[in-house]
């Protein structure tokens, strides 16, 4: 059997909280040995000197658009390639696909197609409500049986409190987490960007923080009351962090952020136009600081990305007509390095843990997401030093809607190994 030996790298032991200079041997789809000075003349050797070798990155908030198009599922392939390029071995796909993941059959189909393509591990999130319309609970048990690992109406909130209350209680039977997009649409309405100085100056309708904060407050209380597992995704305001902090030891809650909410503020709209149009909107400096503080003190334990590809170039479009969303799957890790490691908020181990072990814990798979002998061989190798420029023209993703074009970043993934197979080598995808 073919073996892979990763030599002379620095292992990121996220479960132990340390970096360690060790070699790592993979046989089949398992990590079989972690030790100093492993010799194996038959193994394929990756020289990882100067590189960080950690568990495969996990991104629990990714969007696919079309499950099937005329060319036969190219959309899936492109986003899975983008994930590999970004060093991700596991991604959670939000259910607002076309067709949506609200039917067991569609969830099964997605799983089947992704296994057939066979690049990264794709876990579907099932819809909380049918058609993500917020009216009727979807078949949570059957969706879980079909492969859904979490539930979300992402892109929207469940506005009906009673419905969310019943759904959370109902879902406890199946022990699945809810990933909540928190936005009171009666408050955010036609809002385009954060309700702040830029919106005022440009004459755009604003989205105030209260649209997010009020629903987070509501759902912290509902989550606490039901005892269900609630995960708040793409948190963006300073007050949300305070609310989460108040509840952190009281309820089974967790939260994630996106890299763009850490690196950009409302002012990015002036520079990047529609590319900086995203939900929740890019906020202000005080929000960014609070998010970082929440990450530092463990209120926010997961770093996701809310990768939302939109095809085509929409720069020319009228602002109000452009879609919300940022494509960032292949640059998420280097962006987090800039936002958190370079700023001294986290060290490498801390960063990596929030992008591997912690999301796995939220998803109810605490036995995954770290390096160990016997563990599945999902491994990502990162070059921590070399700087490369972001070039959206080279994106694997179908979405080029990205405000980070031209940024010089370090911490790029250089190898992605999924289930013992090297699928990305020296920043190039290997054809399977």
């Amino acid at each position, binding site marked *: 059997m073919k073996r892979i030996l990763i030599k002379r790298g620095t292992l990121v032991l996220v479960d132990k909280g340390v970096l360690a200079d060790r070699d790592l041997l993979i046989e089949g789809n398992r990590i079989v040995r972690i030790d100093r000075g492993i010799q194996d003349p038959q193994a394929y050797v990756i020289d990882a000197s100067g590189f960080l070798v950690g568990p495969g990155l996990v991104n629990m908030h990714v969007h696919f658009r079309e499950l099937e198009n005329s060319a036969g599922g190219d959309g899936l392939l492109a986003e899975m390639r983008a994930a590999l390029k970004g060093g991700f071995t596991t991604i959670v796909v939000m259910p607002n696909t076309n067709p949506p993941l609200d039917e067991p059959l569609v969830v099964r189909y997605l799983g089947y197609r992704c296994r057939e393509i066979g690049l990264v591990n794709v876990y579907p999130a099932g819809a909380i409500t049918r058609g993500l319309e917020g009216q*009727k*609970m*979807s*078949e*949570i*048990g*059957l969706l879980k*049986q079909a492969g859904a690992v979490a539930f979300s109406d992402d892109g929207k909130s469940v506005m009906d409190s*009673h*419905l969310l209350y*019943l759904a959370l*209680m*109902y879902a*406890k*039977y199946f022990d699945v987490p809810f990933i909540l997009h928190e936005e009171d649409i009666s408050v955010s309405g036609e809002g385009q960007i954060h309700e702040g100085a830029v919106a005022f100056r440009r004459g755009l309708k604003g989205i105030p923080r209260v649209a997010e904060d009020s629903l987070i407050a509501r759902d912290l209380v509902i989550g606490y009351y039901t005892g269900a597992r609630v995960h708040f995704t793409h948190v963006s305001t300073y007050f949300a962090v305070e609310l989460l902090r108040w509840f952190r030891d009281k309820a089974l809650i967790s939260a994630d952020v996106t890299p763009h909410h850490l690196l950009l503020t409302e002012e990015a709209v002036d520079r990047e136009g529609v590319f900086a149009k995203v939900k929740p909107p890019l906020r202000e400096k005080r929000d960014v600081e609070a998010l970082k503080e929440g990450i530092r003190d463990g209120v926010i334990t997961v770093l996701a990305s809310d990768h939302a590809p939109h095809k085509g170039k929409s720069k020319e479009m009228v602002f109000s007509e452009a879609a919300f969303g940022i494509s960032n799957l292949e640059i998420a890790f280097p962006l987090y390095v800039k936002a958190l490691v370079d700023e001294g908020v986290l060290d490498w181990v801390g960063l990596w843990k929030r992008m591997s072990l912690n999301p796995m814990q939220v998803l109810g798979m605490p036995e995954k997401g770290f390096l160990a002998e016997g563990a599945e061989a999902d491994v990502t190798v990162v070059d921590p030093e070399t700087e490369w420029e972001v070039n959206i023209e080279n994106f694997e993703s179908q979405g080029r809607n990205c405000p980070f074009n031209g940024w010089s970043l370090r911490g790029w993934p250089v190898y992605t190994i999924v289930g013992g197979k090297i699928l990305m080598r020296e920043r190039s995808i290997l054809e399977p």
Partner: protein
Amino acid sequence: MNDLKWAHRHLLGISDLSKEEIFYLLEKANDFRNFLEKSPKRLANLKGYFLVNLFFEPSTRTRVSFEIAAKLLGMEVINFSTSLSSVQKGENLRDTVLTLSQMKVDILVVRHRESGLPLYFAGFLPFHIVNAGDGIREHPTQALLDLLTIKRQFGKVSGLRVAIVGDITHSRVARSLCVGLVKLGNSVVVSGPITLVPRSIEEVGAEIVFPVERAVQDVDIVYLLRIQRERQEAGYFPSLKEYSIFYGFDSKVMQLVRKSFVLMHPGPVNRGVEIASELVEAPFSLIQEQVTCGLAVRMAVLDTLIGSD
């Protein structure tokens, strides 16, 4: 039969009865159950007494059971089920039943969707009142017929373990049965969709166990409740299909129960929802026997209430 002095004018709920009183009724009902095997069946115990069935909620089953029970005891029966259906509550309802009282009936069997309505009637009506189901509160004759069925099956009605599965929240059957079983020294576990299993059931002595597969292990009796489609429409669970797969009793669940277990259901059964169709009439099913025991229990109740005059 023992010589307990019956102390209740009405039968409003299992909660009002002592352990001794329940045993007394069960013993009497057991005699009636044996008697039902004989022919001719008609007795003259209560000849000349009048019973009124006042049903504000449709239930052919319970109404007919009371009617036959009364007739077997020689009573006259008057059914008010549809003619009064427009009467809802308040003064109107009070006037209507006061009129009934002027007609000098002896016993009123009442069903209403309002919890506590029979109790309200008992406050001003001069005759015996039997609660045939009030809202989500109590259904005492159902609980008694279930206990009689159990007693005849196991030779005892204490020290058993019973799993009640389904919509506990909206079930007067579950509430009465649970109270009765606990009172007689049985242990009760409840299960079903979490949205339909209220935490407060623990206060009457039941234990909540999820999932259903775990709840039915090591029990003597699996008691399934009828699932109403309205509960799905109200959002308590997503679909009947999902209900049947995760909470329904089928051959998969059959693998998990004791060999000696029995299955019960208050009827009517939704085949393929709370129970797989082929299991309804299986040898371990007491569903048919429950119906006959219902008749015997109602005879015992009528005989006891009127006999205590």
